């Protein structure tokens, strides 16, 4: 019978030395490679977690799987009605603008709130079976990514009705998604560390998300509030979401500045999250 590859597992812990030393370049490359390999080895687990989460979520509801399409559609319809009839921002095809920013935002917000509590929610499992802890936030982000895919499908249907333009700039979407994914994973890891160690952060983070939503040009364009421009520019999400807005609404190519800022920001966040994770990797268990 085919055996899964037996891993000669050696757990070596060398304590001592500051955190800086532990993240020294040479060791970190080897560590990153090991972690990537472990992540790859855990892909079955991720797939099971993701499919399990989605199955459970929709199994008990009447519409079942259709909800993955209907839910984002309803939200988008309601919000676009509110924002184009009630609060007015003078924009051509406002719903298209709204959706192009909202869908990636939903992905981000859902990922962070799920990642934050991912270890706590699964503590029974973690305390009994050895699982690479990084797989939990990773699965949470993947679940949100799948939901985003469906939301995009719903969105494209809606766009057809709205008569939105499709252009070659759609190519920007994968790039935007790649950056956003890395950024989200990083922030998710940070959220997971914070929430596991101090439970309050679950609520603090959700409040912060609300605030962040309004500090990001999703419901309004940057041009509409020039006085707030510095705040919006300081928000990394404004930059990352711009890829989606360029591709779906503005139909222009992003500036070099946007590319640079996005890649730097997303990689930095991923690095910070990952470094935190490695630092506390063996201590999470004591906090569950």
């Amino acid at each position, binding site marked *: *019978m*085919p*055996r*899964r590859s*037996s*891993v*000669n*597992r*050696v*757990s*070596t*812990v*060398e*304590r001592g030395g500051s955190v800086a030393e532990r993240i020294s370049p040479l060791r970190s490359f080897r560590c990153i490679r090991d972690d990537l390999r472990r992540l790859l080895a855990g892909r*079955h*687990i991720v*797939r*099971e977690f993701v499919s*399990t989460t989605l*199955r*459970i979520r929709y*199994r*008990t509801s009447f519409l079942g799987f259709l909800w993955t399409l209907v839910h984002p559609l309803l939200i988008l319809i309601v919000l676009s009605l509110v924002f184009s009839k009630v609060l007015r921002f003078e924009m051509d095809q406002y719903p298209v603008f709204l959706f192009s920013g909202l869908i990636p935002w939903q992905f981000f917000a859902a990922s962070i709130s799920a990642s934050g509590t991912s270890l706590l929610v699964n503590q*029974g*499992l*973690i*305390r*009994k*079976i*050895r*699982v690479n802890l990084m797989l939990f936030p990773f699965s949470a982000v993947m679940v949100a990514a799948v939901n985003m895919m469906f939301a995009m499908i719903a969105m494209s249907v809606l766009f057809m009705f709205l008569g939105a333009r499709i252009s070659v700039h759609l190519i920007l979407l994968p790039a935007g998604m790649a950056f956003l994914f890395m950024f989200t994973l990083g922030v998710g890891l940070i959220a997971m560390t914070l929430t596991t*160690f*101090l*439970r*309050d*952060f679950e609520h*603090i983070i959700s409040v912060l998300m609300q605030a962040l939503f309004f500090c990001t040009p999703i419901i309004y364009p940057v041009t509409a509030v020039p006085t707030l421009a510095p705040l919006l520019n300081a928000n990394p999400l404004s930059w990352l979401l711009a890829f989606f807005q360029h591709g779906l609404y503005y139909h222009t190519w992003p500036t070099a500045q946007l590319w640079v800022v996005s890649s730097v920001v997303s990689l930095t966040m991923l690095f910070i999250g990952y470094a935190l994770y490695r630092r506390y*990797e*063996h201590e999470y*268990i*004591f*906090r569950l």
Partner: protein
Amino acid sequence: MRFRSYGDSQPSLKQAVVDRFSRRKHKQTAEFWLYRDLNLTVGHGSRLGVIGANGAGKSTLLKMIGGIYHPTSGTIRVTGQIAPLTDLGAGMLPELSGAENIVLNGVLLGYSAREMKKKTERILDFAGLQEFREMPIKYYSSGMMMRLAFSTATDIDPEVLLIDEVFASGDAEFVQKATSKMERLLDESHIVIMVSHQLDLIKQMCTRVIWIDNGDIVSDGEPSEVTDKYLAHASLVGGS
């Protein structure tokens, strides 16, 4: 390994800040060391029994070997696939059906979903739960749960088998099946490490026994010898 137990199970930001200021250094934290200077080598073909009083640190040792707790210093080297038979049903999700849970648990132990789907039939057969395979396990009786968990866990090909007091209850027919399955499992494994309070079982099945007390190995040797010492100690402490 340094084990930290945080008395306050809901660590809050406010508490952390307050503690910092009120100079009550981790008043609610119990910190103690286990297995300092531990030197244990278990070779191929061994069946190691672990006995000791409750709270002595037996499960902790198993968890350290199983990779759940990380040593604070030193090395734990395990060669071979680890099959943990501890607290059956840990990875079970109540909303999922029996068959789905089998796949999930198998994946957690390291198999791919495809492999697990192939094993599902055999596992359900052994557990006698074929007709309930699509039912969410939250509706299972506790006996059914136990059978499902046990069958899933024992369908593996173990190289290093870690058992933590799983010789629990079930109906008579299943207990017989389970016992013979366990014996076969023990024969197939290369190394077995078993925690139990059933001393006759330990004497019967193990080739070597260690007695854990207060987070350290107090005695290590022949099964009958160590279990006798343990019993003598227990009656000394508890009897009079």
